[in-house]
């Protein structure tokens, strides 16, 4: 439960503002299927965490429980100290949570800049404005910055349906960086990216301001272990191991289960 030894210094006021995320015996069932069982997990504010595990281990389900896309069937979720178990998705997002989706979920009828602009407006004011955004609109300026950050400047006015796969993945990341995020959930953002796009992604992750924490689901160990301070391994809907990247890499059980078998090895034992 408690995870001593993280890089974040203990504050003089115990507990206050310490955790970005606290999960308390969180489970998620789909009918008879137990996708995730009894997860206890804490993530410090500003912490960078990787979540590893084979396909079907319950990683995406974990994200869905945190955001409320598929709320937990039991257990409690606290974000930035506040119990959000019964809050709808958009309320959690407005509190500083962001996410990307494993399979890009974008607005195919809108342009790239319109997608990013909506993400910036969604977490700010004026969601119902009947005016067209002006160039000097605050949200529009932020959208232009994010557009540049994910290297999509030359696709600014392209409808999303016409983007390549890699570009759609980059747009997913841009949407998750809107506003003032405090905890971002990245669901396999590097999947299907070219090596140079991967390097760009790692750059973005490493250049996030220190108070922005993230949880990263990633099969590519190089990416995951490079950017993460701590690693959580999931297996069969449960937490199997937690530790620093070094501890995880050298753990014999982990090696037997995953590292020796390639990315998708292990399966459901």
């Amino acid at each position, binding site marked *: 439960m408690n995870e001593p030894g993280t890089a974040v210094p203990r504050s003089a006021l115990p507990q206050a503002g310490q955790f970005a995320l606290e999960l308390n015996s969180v489970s998620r069932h789909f009918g008879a299927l137990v996708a995730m069982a009894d997860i206890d997990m804490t993530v410090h504010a500003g912490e960078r965490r990787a979540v590893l595990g084979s396909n079907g281990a319950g990683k995406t389900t974990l994200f869905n429980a945190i955001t409320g896309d598929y709320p937990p069937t039991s257990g409690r979720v606290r974000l930035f100290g506040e119990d959000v178990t019964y809050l709808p998705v958009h309320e959690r997002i407005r509190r500083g949570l962001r996410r990307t989706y494993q399979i890009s*979920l974008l607005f195919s009828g809108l342009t790239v800049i319109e997608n990013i602009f909506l993400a910036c407006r969604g977490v700010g004011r004026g969601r*119902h404005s009947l005016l067209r955004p002006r160039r000097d609109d605050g949200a529009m300026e932020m959208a232009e910055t994010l557009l540049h950050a994910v290297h999509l400047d030359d696709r600014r006015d392209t409808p999303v349906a016409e*983007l390549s796969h890699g570009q759609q993945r980059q747009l997913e990341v841009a949407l998750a960086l809107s506003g003032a995020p405090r905890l971002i959930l990245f669901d396999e953002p590097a999947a299907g990216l070219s090596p140079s796009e991967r390097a760009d992604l790692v750059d973005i992750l490493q250049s996030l301001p220190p108070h922005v924490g993230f949880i990263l689901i990633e099969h590519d160990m190089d990416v995951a272990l490079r950017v993460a301070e701590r690693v959580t391994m999931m297996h069969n809907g449960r937490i199997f191991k937690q530790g620093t990247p070094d501890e995880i890499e050298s753990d014999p059980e982990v090696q037997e289960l995953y590292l020796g078998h390639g990315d998708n090895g292990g399966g459901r034992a």
Partner: protein
Amino acid sequence: MFGIERNSSRYPLGINPAVLLAAVFLIAYPLFASDFFTFQIGAYSLILGTIALSLTMLAGYGGMVSLAQMTVAGFAAYLMAILGTNSVGVMGLGWPWWLTVVIAILGAALLSTFIGAIAARTEGIYTIMITLAIAVAFFYFVRQNYQIFNGFTGFAGIKPPTLFGLYWRDPTPFYYLALAIAAFFFLAVRYGARSTFGLGLQAVRDNPRRVRALGINVFLHRIVAYFYAGIIAGTAGVLLVWFNGRVSPGIVGVDMVIDILVIAVVGGMRAPIGPFLGAIAFVLLENFAIDLIDRERFNTVIGLAFLLVVLFSPDGLLGLWRRIESKIRLPRASARLGVRANRGDWHPAGSSERM
């Protein structure tokens, strides 16, 4: 569900010459058209087009196919008779015309919002079913309620005011009134489509789950859209009751409810001009098909026309026009299509709701 056209600026001054031509034609129309064509064809098309525009806004931009838009317009029409003056001796509270108009439109918008609140938690076919059920329930309610809605008979003798020395039910003034209102809502929808709210609405259509993950309240966004659609339909309802001079349950019957859907679909939901094209085609057919066939067969003709358009041009008359246009301007269009084909080799999986 439906792709929306975006404004193109490939014309000098950004104005499509066809748009300019259409505007001149619409303004000059009463100068050369007979009273019948000005009133029964012109004004009536504009009214039905405006009601169908409210459906296009909900369905084309919001992905919500509501069959209750005629009900909303009909409710405004009833409020005009109930709160204002009628010649039947039931209700007719005698409010001043301007207050009656404002309350009728707001009342319609509130009804639309209420319908939205019921329907907005559903999607696709379920939205159609629920709004159809509401429309049918409203029809039977007004037909059986004699205290307020005067049942089967309804109301007659509802007149627009005489203002600035003009009686607004005379063909030419009424035509210009209908044109002004239709043009206002047409431009509002066109402009609003790229506003923050409009972009958000299209995002809700494309992917409600992702919209939530951006911090936007999907349910609220949907019912606000129903409110605006109610303003549009309600205003058209006021025009409709002035046009007919009367209102009875037939106006909110299933026939009319379906007619509005047919108009919107036949016209095309990809742009706000679609419902007006559909309305013109519908009103012309309604008036002149009868010369060729029995009154009873009219619905068969409408049904067949609907089937033909849906089969041969799923995006309606609008799509048909675009295809003809692109044939005419072949060189430029094919160059553009070539570029699209190159870029369109990867299709997003993003449109699915799950995962």
